[in-house]
């Protein structure tokens, strides 16, 4: 599906689709969606400079201390896809995943700011294996993260994990795709939630940044094709196809769909799931690694896409995920206010708008204060690079 839609039509369609389910206060919130300050730094390489750059950026955001001192901090990493798939010979941290140097620096700075406990979270593909094992599989050394702070923990959140029950997150206002989501306990048992993402495009949602990273907080024991009708699986199997295709419902134990007859199309469904998730499980700090990345999609060699390595040399952080992603999009050469049909949302609704209408934050650059490197100077046009390479 690749239709051109005006912004007015888009919002109308969105309101119609969810109209019966979105509570009026949420629509009111949309008009007041907050804007967060976003810090941008140029950082050419993965080295000690990353710590300095992030430290400066966090200061520009008001400092980490007040956010994390004495707190349990959970960091959702962005380790999407297989640990052994690479773009050409490049390891995943150069193209697909946040680099260990960025993770290390963030953990180190959180520790320095007084975080009591730092938990690294991810839902590796179809496995209950410890997250550290998944990292080793990719050629990483998780011990380095353990050494970056006094107390570092890891959890694979693609299943029940160390929790006794799933934690339920209801979407304020009733939700766009589901009324709520059942997640691994780690997303509840934290005081501060950080989304650490890679600066990338995405086949279904146009871009994948701090918001889309949270798509991966949903456990495949519940949200995969293989989940039973009533209860979650013990062990995750397969991917999150029900979000993409709406071909089935999650087990009855999970919160239900807002509308079982909603469109069965990824460009409609996935952005709504993302908006729901960041509304239900708010992100306190969004950090995006754009030092090295790739253009053309989210996972190398997938769907026959044309992916090329890129080197934007950027770090982006903010306390509002919508505003942070909006700035990141602008840095990638995209209009964060673009409607469906306009790149990068050629085939999807704009998840930033959807989150805005759930009151999460604004993607309106005129309302967002950018600290550090100005967008105009730091911009790295992903599509231009791709076109020139092609």
């Amino acid at each position, binding site marked *: 599906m690749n239709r051109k839609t005006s912004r007015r039509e888009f919002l109308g369609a969105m309101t119609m689709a969810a109209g019966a389910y979105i509570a009026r206060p949420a629509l009111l919130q949309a008009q007041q969606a907050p804007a967060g300050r976003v810090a941008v730094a140029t950082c050419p390489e993965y080295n000690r400079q990353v710590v300095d750059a992030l430290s400066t950026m966090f200061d520009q955001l008001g400092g980490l201390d007040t956010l994390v001192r004495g707190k349990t901090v959970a960091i959702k990493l962005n380790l999407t896809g297989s640990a052994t798939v690479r773009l050409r*010979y490049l390891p995943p941290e150069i193209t697909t995943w946040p680099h260990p140097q960025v993770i290390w620096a963030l953990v180190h700075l959180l520790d320095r700011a007084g975080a009591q406990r730092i938990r690294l979270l991810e839902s590796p593909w179809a496995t209950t294996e410890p997250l550290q*094992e998944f990292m080793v599989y990719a*050629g990483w050394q998780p011990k380095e993260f353990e050494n970056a702070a006094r107390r570092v923990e890891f959890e694979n959140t693609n299943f029940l994990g160390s929790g006794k029950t799933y934690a339920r997150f209801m979407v304020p206002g009733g939700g766009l795709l589901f009324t709520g989501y059942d997640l691994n306990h780690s997303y509840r048992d934290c005081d501060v939630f950080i989304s650490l993402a890679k600066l990338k495009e995405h086949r279904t949602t146009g871009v994948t940044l701090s918001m889309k990273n949270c798509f991966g907080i949903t456990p495949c024991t519940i949200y995969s094709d293989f989940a039973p009708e009533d209860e979650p699986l013990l062990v995750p199997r397969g991917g999150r196809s029900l979000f993409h295709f709406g071909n089935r419902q999650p087990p009855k134990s999970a919160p239900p769909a807002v509308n079982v007859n909603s469109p069965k199309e990824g460009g409609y469904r996935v952005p709504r799931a993302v908006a729901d998730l960041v509304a239900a499980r708010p992100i306190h700090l969004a950090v995006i690694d754009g030092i090295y990345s790739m253009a053309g999609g989210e996972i190398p060699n997938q769907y026959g896409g044309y992916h090329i390595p890129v080197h934007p040399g950027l770090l982006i952080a903010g306390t509002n995920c919508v505003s942070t992603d909006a700035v990141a999009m602008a840095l990638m050469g995209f209009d964060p206010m673009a409607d469906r049909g306009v790149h990068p949302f050629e085939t999807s609704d704009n998840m930033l708008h959807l989150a805005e209408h759930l009151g999460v934050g604004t993607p309106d650059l005129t309302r967002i204060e950018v600290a550090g490197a100005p967008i105009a100077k730091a911009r790295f046009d992903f599509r231009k690079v791709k076109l020139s390479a092609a």
Partner: protein
Amino acid sequence: MGLNAKWSPMYWPCGPKEVARVGASNSGSWELKKVAEGWAHPSALQLLKGTPVNCLLVEWASGAAADKPQQQALQPLLDAGRALGLSFVGKVSAKANPAQSAAAGRAAGLEAVMLEGGASQDLDLPAILEFPRDSIDWDGATGIYSTTGNVWPEINLPTMKGDIALGGPTGDPWVNSNGWFSLLARRMAPEKSLWLSIDLPDFPGMLPAEKYCLAIADSRVYGARGILSLDGQMRTALLNGDAPALDAWSRISETLSFFDRHAAWESYEPMGVLAVVSDFTGSNAFMAGETLNLLNRHQTQFVILDRRRALADPVTKLKAVLWMDDDEPNPAQARNLIAFVRQGGLFIAPKYWGPAGIKPHQEDWLFGYEIYNLGQGRIVVAPGGFSDPYQLAIDAHLLLGRENDLSRLYNPNGTNCYTSMGPDGRELVQILNYSPQAATYVALWIKAKARGAKLWSPHAQASTSLAGISASQGTSFDLPTVLVHCAVEIERTV
């Protein structure tokens, strides 16, 4: 006269029996019958000139009236072949009289007979016993022995056959390989040579050379020899002197020559810190065999131990022991295993045989296992026994920990690798590509620190140098495109 471990065997279907077989089959055609006659003619042997094929397997006796005409028809071929230095092995079916068949074979110039089923008797010729793979008698196997029921090595594209799952729901492509079985054969019958008899796959047209090369590599890499068997269309085309077929034959021959040049690799020992222990017979054969198959597919390096003889001495050089059978370790084995665990080893078993009084615990991620801490190590028990080899292979690898991997492939797709070590301590990693597409951008990681490596491939006479890149406490090598097979000989940093 005797069995020769250096024989490079090829099935040579010809003569009246082959003509009758082709005629009886649905696909029987006038052309194939003509080929069956043509291949019995001595001139067909010209095809073998300059190739490593030095042993032809011919149909000899099946206890039927047609045996005599077959043997007579083959005589000129045998005479011509022997003059060229070729050896002939006659296939004798269970219905035939082995003694009579062997005597006739000796008179005609056969060097051995391949006996289908049954034990070898006092024969005029050395015997090669042929077993179904799932009922092999390791101790009764002859110096060269053969198995049937092997798989054609390739990616198995269908995921279901009726109600039977052929492929996993996720993860790596499902690959058919005989590698695990060849490794098992090396352990269970160490002084003997295994010939794999492999049925040709259904294919519309002449099988591409790459498929034959893969079948050869999948045997030779793991220390066995496949009996080369060409499809009907290839044989027809070769007899007609068709250029594409001759080119394919040349590449097949190159691959055979390559492995002959590197025959020493066949004696290299498999590397691994996980030992899989079983008697691999009777009711234990399937579960233990399939676990080997899947461990290999998951690139988990392992060594195989025969339960009847293993662990009589203190366990060294291992990190984990996977005890497959329900049978209890004997007292010496139990003593050594407990000592191994106390010193930090991992013992995975279907039952608990450790000291009494230890309370087990469970881990969140590991379903269906009880864990007993003992000394510095652990005994991990599946209380209901092992039931799913796929899951067991994954769990064993994770329990061992990927930090104990000795090698790993990135962008593996349809490739797999086998890591072995020569008597001089030199490591060799062989990469096989089971996909019909060339494997690009494959990177090999090894745990060792290496300054470089030599890359060998079947279609190049000399090796090329590979630069090692320091990565993850080991070394990474960016491999050039892998068509079917390549070997990476590691040059370790001292």
